[in-house]
Every structure is written in structure tokens, then in C-alpha cells.
């Protein structure tokens, strides 16, 4: 589990934080409601998860709430037996 968490957190930091962005991002940091990931850019996070873990996340499950924190994403991945 900690590996999956770390992989996702690292992806979020590399993909979404600008070079001069010194915000701390942790497992419970609100990504979408906190303005770090906008809904327009969320699609690359979905694609990353699908490619990394060879799954298909239906659009109905790829909600801003489900993607709002790394811990929420981990909860979502449990539905796909990714732990």
C-alpha cells in the first residue's frame, strides 16, 4: 500500500506542481478542491492510474471527489484490487 501511495503522490507532485510552487502536498491534501489540480488537468491523473495499474476507471467513478486526495484515490483503487 505505501508503495502505491508514494507512486501516486510523486506523480501528483511532478505532474501538477509548478517549479516555483512551494506548497506541501501530502496524502490528505485536497488536490482539486484545494486548487492544485483543476478538472481540466485531472484527465492526465486518470490516464496515469489506468496505464500504471492496467485498469479502466469508468467516468462515473472518476469524480472530482474520488480524485481529491491521494487517500481518496487509494480508496478508489481498492475497487480494482490495487493495494
Amino acid at each position, binding site marked *: 500500500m505505501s508503495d502505491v501511495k508514494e507512486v501516486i503522490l510523486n506523480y501528483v507532485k511532478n505532474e501538477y506542481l*509548478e517549479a516555483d510552487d512551494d506548497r506541501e502536498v501530502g496524502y490528505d491534501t485536497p488536490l482539486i478542491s484545494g486548487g492544485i489540480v483543476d478538472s*481540466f488537468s485531472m*484527465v492526465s491523473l486518470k*490516464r496515469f492510474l489506468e496505464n500504471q495499474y492496467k485498469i479502466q476507471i469508468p467516468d462515473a467513478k472518476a469524480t472530482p471527489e474520488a480524485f481529491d486526495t491521494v487517500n481518496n484515490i487509494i480508496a478508489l483503487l481498492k475497487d480494482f484490487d490495487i493495494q
Partner: protein
Amino acid sequence: MSYSTELRQVFQTELDRLKSEGIFKEERAICTPQNSEIEVEFPIGSAKKHVINMCANNYLGLSSHAEVVDAARKGLDHRGYGMSSVRFICGTQDIHKELEKKLTEFLGTEDTILFPSCMDANGGVFEAILNEQDVMIADRLVHASIVDGMRLCKAQQDTFKHSDMEHLEQKLQLHQSARIRLIITDGSFSMDGDLAKLDKIVELAEKYNAMVFLDDSHASGFIGKTGRGTHEHCGVMGKIDIITTTLGKALGGASGGCVSGRKELVEMCRQKARPYLFSNTIPPVVVSGAIRVIDLISKSTERRDKLERNTMFWRKGLTEGGLIIKEGETPIVPVMLFNAKLSQDFARDLFDEGIYAVGFFFPVVPKGQARIRTQLSAAHETHHLEKALAAFLKIGKKYDILHRSKQEIIDHFGA
């Protein structure tokens, strides 16, 4: 379902939420033609106030230019008020074709198609030319209309960090298996006033076999030595596959937009772009005015040169006075205040001083980056800018933010 009291309450609750979150937008009524000096009722119905306008997209000062108004009037006399048709049934006049030809020449492209607005151009172009085998890779700060257009298109979507060429290159590598890669960017970004690194983007496009899309709405007419746009400024005229732009800003400011670029892509829009197919033609009066605009700015760079001088004066004055601005060279000059409430208070105080500018804060700009966006115009004279500068510095002094660092302002007011 009838529009019941309960249903009315559903919508009222949502409107109340917008108000409580401070993102409820209120209109001001301008009681004069658009210009550097206007009369404003704010709130609507209150006494008219004479103010200097620092927030119009009237970059070249052509919105109320006598020659443009005269040409529009003649267009009204000779070609009528409306066409009561979409373009492809009976809504195309000779002047629509003439304007398309003039825009093609001005922008240095192969062909052009007019749309009712650039919002419509961006809404229709992607769906018309791409399919599910393709990928659109957009800068994260592109205009909302591009985001909407991308959502209407079946091609895959991806984004890259704002103006981050390394990140764009990674994305181009990631999507090498797609049929078409389309890099999407604004020329001049409307909230920050910075310019796309279009020369680098073209270089990457050539390296990774991608096409380039440019929305030059905040650049057409004044960026580049002869005002052709960001592609002229960056030395890549003729290398941009699709340019969208608006007639609603520097180019007369009325309405209308276009897709200009490779002739096959323009033809695809003529055949398939839904806002072109299912929306009324641009009225003759607007087309006639826009033709005169293109003639005026093709003949002389006087207006864009004046705008450039005004921009330099304004940027220098604000910086030397101790305010923090977003660095750049465009006439979009954001004065950074960081705190949302401060941006609103500052704008209100400016209005009291006879200066009209608007504060922007989250979600329009990222959290902690609230600002007042100022926009220069060739219609501004030095005395307008001197008065506006004095007001900015007076209010900056009132809030004790002159010559303060970003951190000092945030420490005092909060992010």
C-alpha cells in the same frame, strides 16, 4: 413541471451560495461609447461616474474610432442590418468573403473562416478536425473556450504545465502513437499577460511531428513588429497550423472570431464545425467595420506603437512606484495583491478615485494570486496614465504595500 416556489428556491440557494463565496458577478452600466474615458453606473441605476477605463480589451483604441464607425454605418446602409441565415444557406455576402481574405493576408495563413465569436471558433474547431485516434495537448492556462472545445471533441486530452517546454516534450513523447498530436496554446495569456514560447513550441512540434494551435485573441493587431500576432513576435509566421482569434478585442471590439490556417483544416471547419453551421452569420455592420480595422492596421503601425509606449510607461511607473506586477511585455499588466479581499477593496478605492479596473481572485486565478488586471490601450493619453498611476500609488500607500515583498503582503493580509 411548473416553476414552483420550491424550484425557484433551488436556484435562489445556488445564487446565494455564489454571493456568500464572493464570486457573484455584477454588471456595471457604461453610458458612453467604449473609450479610455467612460461614464459608468455602478451599481446600475446609481449616479453616473466619469472614470478612466483600465480594463477594456480595446487595445488599439478602435472600438469607437470615427473611421470604423463610419465604415460600419456604410455597411449598414449598403448591406443591411441582418442576414436571417447561417452562412451556408443565404448568409454569406461578398463582404464576408472579403473580410476572410483580408484576415488570411494579415495573419499570414492559407485561408480563414469567420465564426460568430472566437468562443464559437474554439468550441467548434477541435471536433471538426480531430477524432479518437488523435490527442490534444494544451497549456494548462488556455482560455475557457478552448477547454470547452476540447471537451466537445472525441480526441484524447492532455495538458502541460504553463509554458513548461520540458513537460510539453514529455507529453509529446508519451503520445507518439497517436495519429495526430495537436499542441494547443494561447499566444498572450489573458490573466498573466505573458507570451507563449511559440518558437520553442514550433521547434518541439517539428521534432515530434505535431501540429500547433494558437489562440491569439489577446495579441492579434498589436503583438509583433507589425501587429500580426505572437507568431510574428516569435519569428514563426507561416508555421502555425491553426490560429483562432477574435474581432471582439483589438480588431474593433464588436464581435466575431475566426479560424485561420491550413486550407484543408479551414475547409473541414466549413463542412463540420457546429457553431459555424448552426449559428447566424456575423451581421454586415460588424463585417464592414472589421474590414476597415484590418485596412487601418495594415497601412500603419502607429496605433500598436503607441500601445507599446503606453505599456512601457505603465509597467515602469508601477514597478518604480513599488507595486508588484507580473513581468512581461504585453499590455495586460496584472498588479499583484495576492489576497482576495485586498483585490476587491483596492478596486473599489480605485473606482472612488475615478479609475475603473477589476480585481480577480480564486477561482478565476489560482489561490493566493489575487490581482487587479490592468489593460492598456492606444486610446490612453499620457495624462490618463499619469492620473491612473497616481491613484494606484495613493491606494497602495493607504494599504502600506508599496515596496513590500510578496511575502510581506501575504504575512499582513493573508494569502
